[in-house]
């Protein structure tokens, strides 16, 4: 079985699973875990967009 993911979709899938693990392991209560997981996911995906824009500007 071969999975074909673009760079962006691979980054989003990576962010999703890493955020789940970070949320569960780094906070105590369920609501804090959910908040921290969402925060990590937003930072991961935001970082992808930021890095993408930086590379696009460097390329010009």
């Amino acid at each position: 079985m071969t999975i074909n993911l673009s760079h962006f979709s691979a980054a989003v899938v990576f962010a999703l699973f890493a955020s789940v693990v970070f949320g569960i392991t780094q906070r105590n209560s369920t609501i804090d875990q959910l908040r921290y997981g969402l925060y990590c996911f937003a930072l991961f995906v935001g970082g992808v967009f930021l890095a993408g824009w930086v590379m696009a500007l460097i390329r010009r």
Partner: protein
Amino acid sequence: MAKPTTDKTTDKKTDKSKNAVAVSEPEHPLTTMAVVAPLVGWLIPGGGHILLKRYGRGILLLVSVVAMFLIGLGMQGRIYKPNGGDILDILGFVGDVGSGALYFLARLMDWGNVMAANAEADYGKTFLIVAGLLNFIAAADAHHIALGKKQ
């Protein structure tokens, strides 16, 4: 009227004995479960949490780590073998072996024994390593829960 006197030597002795108790008895003593839970958690992702009756967390960890590992294999990621060569290869092996039983199963079934030189295979390799590293974090979390440092 006589002033009340305090026996300083006695106070010092009690202070010392308190300190001695504090040193000899750690706040979170090591229990059998604190050793078994991270080991089970390493072998079976999320297993440590399930053993500690954190079923929801355990299942989420299991799904996350197994999914990352399988996606990594699906993207033609390479599984590192034990090696004593390049430092990056050694670190790659350490990351991969963090997946526990998944790593041994992959080695047994000869999965991830590819040398594809494309970007996707590179992402796959990263997924495999990170799945193992996340499982190490999950195992450490199970240890902290078993000790009582975390809820």
